[in-house]
């Protein structure tokens, strides 16, 4: 996917908030936007949307490198926003009015974190070869994804945002997980 010279198609390239990710788990933007107006409190979801919209408009028609830089800035926003959502979840904050679907997603998110911690532990203790570890990881991760469906994929992506998981998940386990997330991604 490339950007044509002098053409702004940044919107189509930039990552969108996906259902169940920490980015969207922050809640709808409209109520938080009202809160932010009076109290100078940043709403990450709203902020990312505004950045994407305003910068995209201002930079429309600019040369390719500007468009690439803009895409990079906006991507960093979505990543940063996701990190923030994960942080709040880790701190035990809950939404005031969680729906059943949101509560179920919270449970899957928690299970995904515990699952990946177990994978990390198993891989540290395993004496298998790289290929054997990959096969083991693939079987376990596939089972998790098949058990939880699309929510499981999103939960695994979310779990990867925790530094204590992303820093420790390496080698065959990380490689396998990234591959499976690609395979099961709804955008694919």
């Amino acid at each position, binding site marked *: 996917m490339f950007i044509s010279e002098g053409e702004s198609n940044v919107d189509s390239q930039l990552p969108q908030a996906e259902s169940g990710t920490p980015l969207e788990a922050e809640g709808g933007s409209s109520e938080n936007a009202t809160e932010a107006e009076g109290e100078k409190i940043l709403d990450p979801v709203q902020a990312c949307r505004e950045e994407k919209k305003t910068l995209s408009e201002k930079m429309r028609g600019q040369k390719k490198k500007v468009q690439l830089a803009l895409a990079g800035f906006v991507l960093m926003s979505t*990543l940063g926003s996701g990190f923030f959502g994960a942080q709040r979840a880790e701190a035990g904050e809950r939404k005031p009015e969680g729906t059943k679907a949101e509560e179920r997603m919270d449970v899957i998110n928690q299970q995904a974190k515990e699952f990946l911690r177990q994978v990390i532990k198993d891989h540290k203790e395993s004496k298998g070869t790289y290929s054997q570890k990959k096969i083991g990881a693939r079987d376990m991760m596939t089972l998790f994804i098949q058990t939880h469906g699309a929510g499981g994929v999103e939960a695994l992506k979310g779990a990867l945002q925790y530094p204590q998981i992303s820093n420790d998940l390496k080698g065959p386990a990380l490689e396998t997980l*990234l591959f499976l997330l690609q395979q099961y991604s709804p955008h*694919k």
Partner: protein
Amino acid sequence: MPLNIEKIKEFLKSSSLTENEREEFAALLSHENDSELEPIVELFGEDPLWIKKLYDNLVRKQQAFAGRDKDAWEAIMKDEEGALSTME
């Protein structure tokens, strides 16, 4: 053909980021659909200095989000606009 995330990891190896920063950055970028990383690969390929710029930008944004600091966010937006306008 290598995934974009793998290309990015190669770029990161030659960056001025520390090993931990590289791992953190790669792990975060790996959350995105690989096709969404295409512009990042292009950007890093054109000028590796963008690796440090985007990483620093990400850290500032994380701090603004964590503190829910709208003023800090607006300062970041201003810096981004400034950086983009110098490239025009």
